[in-house]
């Protein structure tokens, strides 16, 4: 069912997979991102904010869709729980890719897929923004490679897969901003406590039977 007034699309969460709303900020070219608000992508202005790439859901249903434009201001919010989000750039697979500000329900997987030239090697590291290493806290995680996209999707969020034809898959999870592990890597769930047992690893605002995951 669609709303004609907004216009809006309505997605029943109970249909098929466990859907949720997720968000990432996906940086691939600092030379353009740094110009957001001035040269590109203004707050109501007329500066260019053209598509530099697209993101769309995996699957045959979406095969003919161009996807959601990804601009110099590379925020992406959308439904999670499908197999994943396919991210392509007009300029080809990015040598540099930095994901910030995840808001992701741990029960609704988000797998990011990025096509690269065959034979591409990748190194993936997660870094907590506000963190100091200690005996009990780790601040960084180096991702390991697994044998299939399915293993990525069902994994703990610190794995990736690179296919022989150059298709990268990596699961994006909601990591806390002040630690990555205790000291071993953790995949925070909604009830996982935060650093030093304070609050929750996944920040949220929850009232009246509604819970919204907050940016770390």
């Amino acid at each position: 069912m669609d709303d004609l007034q907004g216009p809006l699309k309505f997605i029943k969460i109970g249909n098929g997979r466990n859907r949720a709303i997720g968000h990432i900020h996906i940086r691939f070219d600092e030379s353009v991102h740094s110009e957001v608000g001035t040269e590109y992508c203004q707050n109501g202005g007329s500066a260019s904010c053209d598509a530099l790439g697209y993101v769309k859901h995996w699957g045959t249903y979406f095969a003919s869709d161009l996807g959601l434009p990804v601009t110099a201001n590379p925020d992406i919010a959308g439904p999670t729980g499908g197999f994943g989000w396919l991210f392509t750039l007009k300029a080809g697979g990015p040598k540099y890719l930095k994901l910030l500000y995840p808001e992701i329900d741990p029960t609704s997987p988000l797998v990011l897929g990025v096509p690269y030239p065959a034979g591409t090697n990748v190194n993936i590291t997660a870094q907590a923004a506000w963190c100091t290493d200690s005996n009990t806290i780790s601040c960084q995680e180096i991702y390991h490679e697994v044998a299939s996209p399915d293993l990525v999707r069902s994994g703990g969020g610190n794995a990736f897969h690179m296919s022989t034809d150059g298709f990268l898959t990596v699961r994006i999870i909601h990591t806390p901003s002040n630690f990555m592990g205790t000291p071993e890597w953790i995949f925070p769930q909604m009830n996982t406590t935060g650093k030093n047992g304070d609050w929750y690893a996944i920040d949220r605002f929850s009232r009246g039977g509604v819970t919204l995951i907050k940016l770390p």
Partner: protein
Amino acid sequence: MNDSQNYCGKMKKKYFKPWVTFSQSSERVVIPQPEAPTPISSQSNCPHLEQGLSDWHSTDTWPGGVIPHAGSNVTLPANTRVILTKNQNGILGYVSIPSTSELIIGERKKGIRLKALGISVEGKLTAGSTTCPIETKIRITLLGTRPSDAVTNRPDEIVKGISVTGTLNLHGEQFYRTWTRLANTIHAGDNYALLQDKVNWKPGHKVVVVTTAVSDTTVWHENEVLKVEFVDNFRYNKQNKGSIVYFKSSFQHDHLANRGYQGEVGLLSRTITVSGGKDSEPTDPDPLTCTQARWMWGGPQKAPCQDKGLTGYGGHIIIHDGGKGYVEGVELFRMGQTNVLGRYPIHFHILGNGCDDCYFRHSSVHHSFYRCVSIHGTHNLTVTENVGYDVTGYCYYLEDGVEEDNTISFNLGAFIHHLGEAAYGGGQVTALAYQSVNLTLPADVTASPFYITNVHNRIIGNAASGGWSGFAFPSLKKPIGAHTGVNMRPSSRVSLEIDGNTAHSTGWWWYHAAGFYFGGALYTADDGQSLIYNAGRDSANGSRSPCLLDQCAKGNCDAYCPRQHQAWVRMTNSKAFLIPSGGTNSWSGRMEVVGYEVHDAGLALEALEAGFWIDDMLVVCRTGANFSLPEGSRASGIKGSGFFWYDTGQEHIITNSLFRNCGYRSDEFNQYDESPDRGCSNTDNLMSCHQDSTVFGFLTHSNQFNPEGMQGTKNITFDNCGRRYRLHDWRGINANSTVSGRLQNWLDVDGSASGLGEPVIMGSGQSEAGLWWHVENDGKNDVTMAT
């Protein structure tokens, strides 16, 4: 046959129905009521009847045997209790009451009058007691002309004032209620008002019937002051709950009472009056002939003339340096001195916790040239059941931001006048206001009935009309004024109680002003002394982070409040109505708004914060009441929308809320409701709404600031609404889609908003988003990659 019998026959037919009783006066919220007083059957413990008093008018009382006379300064003899039993003729100079002495003003059928240039109370100034309220007239008049340098060279406290370092005991007769609300609409030409509560007001009393127009400003208002002819407490209705008040003249305007809201009626007269003389009136009155280049509410608007009305010089009362003040049943008239710091109708000045049994209650302040009551550096004070009307500058006033644990309850504030140019601007920004001789407190550009610089107080059951906003909650990162340098952060304090307050006929001067305005930032300039006020959204100085930890005490006020210690400013049982801008606006910090009604407003609530909960809200965008508006404005210039989701960095949750008669009505917007009177239209004349009216709106103009997963709802009800949803881009419908527009989303936890009855994700329907906000229903085929 007396007058009451004259009216009786008419009443039965005309007046008894329909009426709005208290229980019918709100649909969702419960507005608290003041406690009924214990009846005083007869006076007891009257100070003026005590033995051993010295007669003011006796030569035996005064050294040298000279009774005070006009023009003379008077010092009461030490260790003496002097009683004034009749008028003191002429104008005395300065009257001093030494610390061992007391001046008692008694009762006299014809009243007692005392005129002086000022009174210093080191001992006691007494009229009545709590068990002996004064039932006859006492008039204390303070005289003096305004020095040209009154702002920069402020006269001493005693000058045209009552300066109290001892004890001030003024106890006038208690009238209950001091104010109430209408039980039925008054029509122009009527000479009576049905009230929701019984009142014991008397013939000849002055009463203000507060406007229910959308505007309440000096340049255009419909407040009316009338004199009581008599009060009928017996013929109202079967429950006999209210009064009918007959007036000596007829009303010029309608005053509304319906099941959504009702105008207030307040008593101005009291038995004890402290006033400034006729010399208090400003010598530079506003001619009210000015206009400004503001096109608002459908047309150009008049405005007060700049830098006029700045010379009001009324009397004042200041309780300071360990003084005590117990003031009730007192009328303060022509008090306050415009822009003179500290010279207010009544001022509890830096008393700390030393005046925790003090009060100002059951009183009135009207035609004030600078505020009503100032609570300054004072805690645990009670200000309750007062009426403030026709006031320049903020009325009920927490001065420096340090004031805490005070109770401000059941007060009425109406017809409040800003100083300088009313704050206004494009977007979320207003011009900064700077302290000057014409604007001692720059925040007075948004003068409002209530000025709450620290939420750690009890703000209960108050009513506001007029002003830039109804209740102003500015953010202060640091205390100001005499408390500059105090190590605390007012804007980080947690709220004690903000409950049962109402605001109306305000928010006229700016689209982002509101009945309850949690915005604006007041701070000290780099010179360390002068003040700057930013009335709009101020990210640097205007954020509010209520915290259960005292980070200042730990040495760093700027320290982040850990998540588990964060608190929310909580506002409960509130109502806003007849407001062209917003019922509530908060862009200063975390809030919980629980129990909230909005009727006939431009927008129910505007919120910008990562952590904002609205629960049990009723929004009636148009009640069907005709708007009373100044010439040049139109009802269709007032939006009539429910709620706008913001575009980035938020967490907003709305639960258990109902929207009625919201959203523009047209054939284009009949997907959910086709009833012919759904929502509102821009052709309904005095009850129109703007063609952009929508129940829910989304800000979609930005490519720079974009939404995450920010908003969720549960148990939302639409009642007779037109347009429900609108992706709004102020650049126009032909503008290119934006990043924020394509990413808009909403978690509809129970499907009540979408109408699907099960959990739903709403996403942008803009065509440029492609299939992004689609899923396969069964999800079976999206496990394979399609590159």
